[in-house]
């Protein structure tokens, strides 16, 4: 009985996760057939799971299109780590944006990706390069490199053991080169990104450190490569990261 239940719950959760992930970064609504194709599950299975998820409001249905549901938003807003980080970070991020004039990001490391927790836009017309809740590969971003440089060596080793995706001709894809760069970042306290993730985009990032532990997040300034010089904004980014680290430490609830 115990074994049967266990196996059962694993497969249900796996299928639910496959359905959620099938919506991709931009949830523009999907029909059951497309959902089944992307989740790599039989249409009848997806149809049944979708009906259950709609009943629980984890998915919303509009005609024959399905969307990620409001209940996920509700749960997502309650997740403690991003909530606390945002509360402390937004004033610091806004100040940094006002000083530099470019878009400011806050992200955490998750596996070999960074996940964006908060974004304060520069000019209202600035094209957003990331979304809250979105992911980018850590090795291709200043945010990710700042986080990797200050994490235990095993974390970077795990990332370099995997495939380092070439996002642009400038992406660092050689493990040895990346590891050497992380040593420099550790010394400087700031990571830079020169068109390594997106062509024509530059970025400087610094880790949020509390009491010598692993970094809990990183803050960055990003903008067009022709107007943003990462080395010039680096001191302001580093100062903002230190301010945020101090405030989080003072709250002593990190």
């Amino acid at each position, binding site marked *: 009985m115990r074994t049967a239940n266990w196996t059962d719950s694993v497969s249900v959760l796996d299928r639910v996760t496959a359905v959620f992930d099938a919506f991709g970064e931009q949830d523009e609504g999907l029909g059951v057939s497309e959902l089944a194709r992307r989740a790599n599950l039989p249409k009848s299975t997806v149809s049944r799971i979708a009906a259950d998820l709609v009943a629980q409001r984890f998915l919303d249905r509009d005609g024959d299109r399905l969307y990620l549901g*409001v209940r996920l*938003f*509700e*749960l997502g*807003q*309650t997740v403690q780590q991003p909530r606390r980080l945002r509360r402390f970070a937004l004033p610091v991020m806004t100040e940094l944006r006002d000083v530099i004039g470019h878009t400011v990001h806050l992200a955490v490391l998750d596996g070999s990706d960074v*996940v964006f927790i908060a974004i304060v836009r520069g000019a209202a017309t600035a094209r957003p390069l990331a979304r809250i*809740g*979105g992911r980018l590969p850590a090795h291709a971003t200043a945010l990710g490199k700042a986080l990797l440089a200050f994490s235990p060596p095993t974390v970077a080793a795990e990332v370099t053991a995997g495939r380092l995706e070439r996002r642009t001709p400038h992406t660092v894809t050689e493990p040895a080169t990346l590891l050497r760069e992380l040593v420099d970042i550790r010394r400087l306290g700031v990571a830079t990104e020169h068109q390594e993730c997106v062509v024509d985009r530059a970025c400087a990032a610094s880790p949020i450190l509390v009491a010598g532990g692993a970094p809990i997040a990183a803050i960055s300034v990003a903008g067009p490569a022709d107007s943003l010089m990462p080395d010039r904004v680096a001191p302001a980014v580093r100062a903002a990261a230190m301010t945020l680290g101090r405030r989080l430490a003072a709250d002593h609830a990190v």
Partner: protein
Amino acid sequence: MMSLAEWNTTAAARSSPLSVLDRIVAVLDAVKESDGTTTITEIAAQTGLPKSTVSRLVAELTQQRYLERTEEGVTLGLRLFELGARASLPRRLLAAAGPVIRNLREATGERVGLWVQQGTDMVSIAAVAGRLPMLPTRAGMRSPALTTASGKAYLAFCADQAVVNRVSAPLIDDAAEHFRDELAHVRASVVALDIEESYPGILAVASPVLSVDRVVLGAISIAGPSGAMDPERVAPLVRAAGTTVTRRLAAA
């Protein structure tokens, strides 16, 4: 006394709370309700599930990052944050309403909220604090649809009578009739009021947000101290805000 046949029918019902998905949902809700960190024992007590079952579900949910284990216990995980940030309706509403919320906050100085309907509640999509510091101003929080201005603004324009009936089920006789009249009034004025019904000393004014094909999606509201905020003065501002969000959604 129930016959054996009826018992069997009940047991075979598809919406049995014993389904794996229902258990998963119950565990996630229990962690959410703890508003921070909780323990296996507390989740078991809250859900009525055996501790061994909770323990297995938590392990699996943690492995897939729906939950996270910290030194203090079990908390909601980053995957829920990611999925929640992608959810279509809140994302579209937020994109359309962002500048409108800021303008309304600047024009009135009061707390501004954006809401969608869920079950018998309204769920906050965005909240900007005003001069009422004591009000809960966090996105993701719920308020009852029956008494809040946003709830009444939504229900007045809701074409799904089943939703209206479910929310207004607690009302009987005169109260039910009064509520129907109030919704008719909201439909005519496109503004709903909550005069200290939900929270003592607090007045709220809300207007609906509609989709391009005139389906109600949510409501925008402001809340302030009932003695100091004049509903007559702010009603046109809130109505204009609702209309503007509706127009911006159509243009998106």
